[in-house]
Each structure stands twice: as C-alpha cells, then as structure tokens.
C-alpha cells in the first residue's frame, strides 16, 4: 500500500526552533507549522484573515491539493471575488499542530536530525495549543491583529478559542457549525473511530510506521463513521435512498459479505480515499483535542466569562440539519456572548446537507459570510 505521499510533499513551513510549551506540560523542543497564504497583506497589515481548518482539513484551502490532486476544501468560499475575497484580504491557513500535512505532529521527526517519528509518544494536544501555534505563526508573519478568524467545526472551536485567548488580536470572529464544548455524543462517535484504529492489527500499538504499513482498515472505518455524522438522514436519502448497486440485486438478497447498497460503496470510497492522506496517530491526537475542548470549563463553567469585555465582532453560523454541532450549541455561545455584552450576529442557515453544509454550495451561507465580513471591514476602516 502506498502511503509515502504524506512525507514526500514539501510543504511551506515556518520553523520555531525554540519549540513550544504545551498545555499538558510537555515542551515540544522544536515546532514546525505548515501554512499557505493567498492574497496580499496591505501596508497597515490590517487585512489578514486566518482560516482554521476542521478535523481532517489542512492548509490547502483554495488550491490544488498536492497529495490528493483535488481542489481546495474551501474553493467555493476563498478566492478572488468570493466571500473571503483574496483581492481584498490576505488569507492565511495553517495545518494544525498535531496534524499530518507538514506541521509538527505524531508523524514528524522527534528531533531536528532524527528520522525517528514521535508516533504514540507525541504529547496530547489541545485546541488552545493549536491556537497558540497559530499565534506564533501570525507574529512571524508580522501581523499583530487579525481582521478576522474564520473556521467551521473544529476550526470553529479554534475561532472561539482565539477570540477568548487573544481578544485584542481578533477584530471579527466567525465560528461556523461548531460548539463551545464536545458533547457526549461527539466524544462517543470519536471513540468509535479511535477503537476502529486500535482494533486494526496493522496499527501495531501505534508503531505501524516502523515497517511502512498503515492501519488502513481501522482508519477507513473511523472515517466512515465520522462521515455519517457529517451528513443528514435527508442528505443520505436524497443521494442514495435504498438504491442497490449491483444489477442482479433485484433478483433477490445478495451476499451479506459484499456491498449491496449504494450508500455502502460511497462510505467505503470515503474511507479508502482517506487513508492515503491522513496519519492514524494524527487522527487519534486531533480527535482527542476536540474531545478535551470545553471553553466554559476553563472559566469556572461560565462561558460568558471566556468573552468578558470582548471587543470582537462575532458572527455565529449554524445549519438547520447539522446534528453533530446542532444550532442549540451555537445558541449557547450566542447567549454567552450576549451576557458578555459582545457584538454578535447569529444565523441558522436552512439546509438539509447536515454538518458538511459549511463545505458545500450554500448560497445563503456564502452571502451571510460575505456580508458580515464586508460590514466588519467598514467598521474596521478597511478600504
């Protein structure tokens, strides 16, 4: 099985030779953050937008992906004339700490000259660690204050954390399809994925890289489970219904040991195409980071305290059919922001596409995002 693509591609990176102290108390001796930028930073360095990617996303927001060869994951949103207009804004996106697309993670060498990767010795990462790494990158790029931080799902958690940790550095924040904490249901689904990886004998207690293998079955199953949570019953029904795949299926019941329904082959495809671009230990690290996330807990279970006195302009966006990060969880954030007397817009976009809607063609969502940013640009005095 070919998985060498992960390490072959030369990603654009910033090296922080002094490393970073993590929330867990472990110091990373050196840290690399892979990133991409689009557009031009203006003379005042005031037009930068940081995009935070979701669990299995990466820094290739708006260009051909060097590993998969597919278009950027937010091609519809980021680009010239698009809602996040690269003619107007300087857009930055970095691979999260713990990721596997060039930033320091379980796949990275443990020390500068070593070939031995961190593997399962990689320390636990939190959303805050990801945000602090991004802050280092932003400073390296010479930017004190971001015009906006935008992200969906796990990216939305980073947005919330940015606004909470560095309120003076965030003029506008757009947390999309996200939540201030991971619910028991979110953790439960992640745990099924993790157990699928552990159960794969190719996982080899996390040392699969030693003999160039990958726990492809386990990782694929993890992806399949997760993928279901990104959709909605309506979307699945519309796409696949109960349609069967093989022409002879109509003759009777086919073997339970082969795939039969279209939805099955779709999920299998999703699973198998994932394993060549994602590292299993990275998946474990990042899902854990999501599960740890609970912004209120850091502030005495008072979420509004996380945003006390916030000067940031917020726009919360949820999707009506998203059951992974339902609108009710965005409303919790909206109310906490109200309690902190923050400036908040809050929209639920009507969509039957489930959690994935934030990655898909949703004109109301795109109009909302573009309009909010344009309004903020006016308030920020951006020409």
């Amino acid at each position: 099985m070919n998985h060498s693509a992960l390490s072959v591609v030369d990603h654009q990176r910033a090296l922080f030779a002094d490393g970073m102290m993590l929330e867990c108390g472990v110091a990373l001796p050196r840290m690399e953050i892979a990133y991409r930028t689009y557009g031009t930073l203006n003379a005042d360095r005031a037009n930068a937008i940081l995009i935070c990617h979701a669990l299995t996303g990466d820094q290739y927001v708006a260009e051909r992906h060097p590993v998969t060869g597919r278009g950027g994951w937010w091609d519809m949103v980021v680009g010239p004339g698009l809602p996040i207009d690269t003619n107007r804004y300087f857009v930055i996106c970095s691979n999260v700490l713990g990721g596997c697309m060039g930033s320091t993670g379980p796949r990275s060498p443990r020390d500068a000259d070593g070939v031995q990767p961190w593997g399962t010795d990689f320390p636990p990462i939190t959303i805050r660690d990801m945000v602090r790494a991004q802050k280092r990158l932003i400073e390296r790029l010479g930017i004190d204050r971001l015009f906006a931080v935008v992200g969906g799902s796990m990216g939305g958690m980073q947005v919330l954390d940015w606004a909470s940790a560095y309120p003076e550095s965030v003029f506008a924040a757009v947390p999309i399809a996200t939540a201030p904490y991971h619910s028991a249901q979110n953790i439960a689904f992640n745990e099924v994925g993790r157990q699928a990886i552990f159960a794969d004998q190719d996982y080899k207690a996390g040392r699969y890289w030693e003999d160039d293998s990958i726990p492809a079955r386990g990782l694929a199953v993890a992806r399949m489970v997760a993928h279901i949570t990104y959709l909605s019953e309506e979307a699945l029904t519309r796409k696949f219904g109960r349609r069967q795949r093989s022409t002879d299926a109509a003759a009777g019941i086919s073997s339970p040991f082969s795939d039969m329904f279209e939805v099955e082959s779709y999920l299998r495809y999703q699973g198998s195409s994932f394993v060549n671009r994602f590292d299993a230990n990275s998946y474990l690290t990042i899902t854990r980071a999501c599960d740890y996330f609970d912004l209120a807990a850091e502030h005495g279970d008072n979420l509004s305290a996380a945003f006390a006195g916030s000067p940031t302009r917020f726009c919360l966006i949820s999707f009506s059919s998203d059951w992974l990060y339902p609108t009710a969880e965005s409303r919790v954030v909206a109310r906490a922001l109200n309690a902190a007397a923050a400036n908040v817009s809050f929209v639920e976009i009507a969509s039957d596409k489930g959690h994935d809607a934030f990655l898909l063609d949703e004109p109301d969502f795109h109009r909302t995002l573009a309009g909010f940013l344009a309004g903020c640009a006016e308030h920020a005095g951006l020409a």
Partner: protein
Amino acid sequence: MPDASDGNGVRYVAKNMRLDLRLIAEMIPAKTKVLDIGCGDGTLIDHLFRTRGCDARGIEIDMAEVTHAVAHGLPVMQGDADSDLAQYPDGAFDFVVLSRTLQAVERPREVLRQMLRIGRHAVVSFPNFGFWQVRWQLLWSGRMPMTSVWARPWHETPNIHPCTIRDFFVLCHEEGYVVEKWLAVDEAGQRAPWRRFIGLANLFGEQALFQLRKA
C-alpha cells in the same frame, strides 16, 4: 438627555423607512448603544449606525430576515423577545427598542421589565386597539375587527396581546415606569394634534409610541 428631534435643525428622515421607525429614530440620540428587538431586516439599526453613529444591534425571530440583515453587514442575531433578553447584563444598552412587537409576545409585562433592566430607556411602539375604526367595527359588526394594521383573522393573528393607549398607561403606572415621551399617530402618519389628551389619542391614534424609563 438631548432630544434628537428638537434643536439643531439637522433632522434626518429616511424616506423609505416605516413611519414608526422614523419616529423612533428621531428619539434616539447620537453615539448611543441601542438594541432593537424584532428588528426585521435591520432598517432601523442600519439607519442609526449610518446617521447617528450608534452602536446598534438587533434581535429578530424570523430567520430569513436575520439572514438578510447579516448579509448586509448588520449585527443581528436570531432570537426571541420572550426568551433571549434574560441573559443580557443589566444596563447593557442606552436604548432598547421594541417596535410593533409588544402585542405579539407571550409575556409583554416581562418583556418590558427585561427591556428596562438591560437598557436605561425603552422605546415601544404598538398598534392602538382603541383606534376608532377598531371600536366601530366591533360595535357595528359584532366581529373581531380587521383593519390595515389588524389585518389577519382572530385565529391566525400573531397579535395575541392587543392593547390600547390607555391600557399601556395603566401598565406603566402599575410597573412604576416613567413615561418620558409619548405620541400617537393617525393613518396618514401625522403626529396627532390630540397627543396631549389621552382619551382623544386613544380614539384617533392608529399607532402609539412611548419612551419609558424606570422611576
């Protein structure tokens, strides 16, 4: 507190704004912090920001209106007057506006309390159920009135708590609110000359507008 409609001669009146919104806009001084409950597409907050430099925000229950407003760069959140005021801190706003919505909320008295808790002043407009046409229709036909303001049949109307100008004065008295300003307007949108006389205003005013504060 300066009255924006009096004095300096610079009085902006947006041409296309609903009458009651124009009148409300005139009540709100520049640079104040305003919450507009039931803000619709955000016309008033946009106006207050652009012409008065107010920090104006909105709450609207109808998602299509919210989307429209946010897509036009306005700070509007989806929410409900009955349930989404309680979390705001005391005194967060200078003015809290409720235009043509009081009659449609579940608990008008509680909504007013919340408005005057989170804001120093409350501005409330509502259609007057004491308007002569409404009284006449009920008297003459014996059926629930239908007018341009009360345009839907009784079983479909969202206006579950209609009141008259006199009723509203009574409520303000009971709650200990000071009526800082009030006026009634007729169909043509003129400020009625009978504004000094509650009885006449209650008969000839189609809409009422109040500015309140706590005693």
